């Protein structure tokens, strides 16, 4: 049963728009699938290679700006940005990796965080190129969400399958060896510096492609959206961790959960909280719910804390733990 689960999910995803012809849910699913791409990429470098990136937004934003600038500056279809966004993100990532992988330990994590900030500053300051805070606006190609859905579904499938293929090759073994013990890996003939760059390059390229898609889909970007530390970089980490670090399908599960959680917080549980508060007629409650709706970052922060404390290996990685917990509860109830 477990073997066929991915295929069943794929079939369900393929027919989803036919079953649920609702633009709102289609939009959410498009976001989920985009996060599958980003989370899978993050998982490759962090979960499998052990080099935790805190600045995925740098690559995401680079991809998005590539797509946007191709249109506004060169009058080329932004869809080229899907490919070229990945290329530019990899071009950014490789020299960056070359510099920081010379050092071990926390340097990479810090450097990615710094890169994230640098890119956001550049996006803001270099107004002649990026329009600064005004951002970039392009005309979307399709009116319907349907084409976007199938494009991003293809992207998600391609990224999951390609990471799966990579992990079943020599490279995969090398990435895991580096994660488990870099000294041992080196002594087994593995050029850890080079292979960390390979892993980062692939991850950055996939993330850049997702950025290129975001530009096409949303039609608008600005530095604070696509280079956002919380909404992109931390979200990518959460998608990876919630789903399950170092598992193939973990990030896909994580993407689903995280987009759902994000949406729940953003809409105040689809407005039910507000409705409940209004029904009490108390201005005080309404005010609290208003705050709550604004404070989706707080929910995010709490989620980071709780997940790391209780589910450090994610839903997929800690699945047995969750089952045991549920079973324990049930048997207690029965008793």
């Amino acid at each position, binding site marked *: 049963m477990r073997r066929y689960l991915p295929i069943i999910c794929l079939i369900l995803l393929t027919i989803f728009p036919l079953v649920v012809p609702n633009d709102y849910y289609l939009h959410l699913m498009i976001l989920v699938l985009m996060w599958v791409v980003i989370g899978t990429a993050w998982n490759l470098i962090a979960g499998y290679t052990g080099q935790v990136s805190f600045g995925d937004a740098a690559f995401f934003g680079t991809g998005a700006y590539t797509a946007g600038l191709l249109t506004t500056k060169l009058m080329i279809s932004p869809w080229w940005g899907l490919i070229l966004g990945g290329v530019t993100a990899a071009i950014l990532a490789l020299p960056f990796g070359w510099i920081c992988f010379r050092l071990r330990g926390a340097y990479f994590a810090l450097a990615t965080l710094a890169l994230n900030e640098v890119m956001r*500053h550049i996006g803001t300051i270099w107004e002649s190129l990026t329009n600064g805070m005004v951002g970039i606006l392009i005309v979307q190609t399709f009116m319907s969400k349907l084409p976007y859905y199938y494009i991003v579904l293809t992207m998600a499938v391609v990224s999951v399958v390609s990471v799966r293929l990579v992990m079943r090759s020599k490279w995969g073994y090398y990435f895991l060896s580096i994660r488990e013990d870099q000294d041992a890996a080196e002594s087994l003939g593995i050029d850890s510096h080079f292979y960390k760059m390979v892993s980062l390059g692939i991850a950055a390229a996939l993330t850049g492609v997702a950025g290129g898609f975001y530009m096409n889909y949303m039609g608008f970007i600005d530095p604070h959206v696509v280079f956002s530390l919380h909404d992109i970089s931390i979200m990518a980490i959460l998608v990876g961790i919630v789903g399950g670090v170092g598992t193939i399908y973990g990030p896909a599960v994580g993407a689903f959960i995280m987009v759902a959680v994000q949406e729940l917080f953003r809409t105040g549980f689809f407005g039910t909280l507000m409705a409940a508060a209004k029904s009490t007629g108390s201005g005080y409650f309404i005010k609290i719910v208003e705050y709550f709706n604004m404070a989706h970052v707080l929910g995010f922060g709490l989620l980071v804390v709780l997940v790391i404390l209780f589910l450090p290996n994610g839903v997929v990685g800690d699945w047995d733990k969750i089952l045991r917990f549920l079973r324990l509860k049930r048997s207690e109830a029965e008793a």
Partner: protein
Amino acid sequence: MEVFFQTLVAGILKGSLYALIGMGMTLIMGVMGIINLAHGQLMMVAMYVTFTLHAFFGIDPYLSLVVAMPTLFILGAIIQQWFLNPLMKVESILPENQVLMTVGVGMVLTEVMRFIFTSDYKSVQTSYSKSAWYFWDISVSVPLTIDFFFAVGLTVLLLLFLIKTDTGRAIRATAQDKDAALLMGVDSEKITVITFGLGAALVAAAGTLLIPVYYLFPDIGGPFTRKAFVICVLGGMGSAVGAIFGGMTLGLAEAFGAAYIGMEFEDMIGLIIFILVLLFLPGGFKRLTKV
């Protein structure tokens, strides 16, 4: 020339506060081996403590040091005891779990403060906030001068504490070799809690000292967290003396950058320094001075 000296003085004064921020971070780095990405956020909390004391009770910011520092010490100790130490016992793939936890804690602190105080800019206006004294032709801000002496005093106290007291020695021993310290009978869990508390108290001092001359809003933590890790990397992670050098360097670089390149580049300067250090001086000043 006048601009140059003006900038030099401003840089040194700012650098002394950065040294305080960096020392707190580097202590945590040295003992626990983690980067505390909630460092700036802890400072922000301390600033709100000071702000509240001034706004509601009219307490002078400098006097609030005796409240803000212990408060943050306790907050830091709680974070270490209940949020970071439990992670040591959990089996997980990512070595950076604790660092991620500090990110989460930082986000929660920011949002809780936003909940209480809203996103509005706040500031504390004191009678001396804008006053200055003159050193030949250079005008020097009075509060920044007071800050400087406080910062130097606290730095000396910290170094004395680390060198002279048993707890301080245990902290240094743990930083040098955790296993050896354990064998020598150091209660490492207790040391980590004290260290995190101490680090938080130091950055709280920096925040409180900044209040008379700075504005305050919930998101101010992020930039200071980044400054703190730049200082740490610059000084060589884990080195208290390195952090003083690192703090001074960053203060001067920011001051000169803002004066000669442009204000909008101020935040980027630290990050550029960070990349330069990674490129040309991996290991920071510690490598040059061996302290």
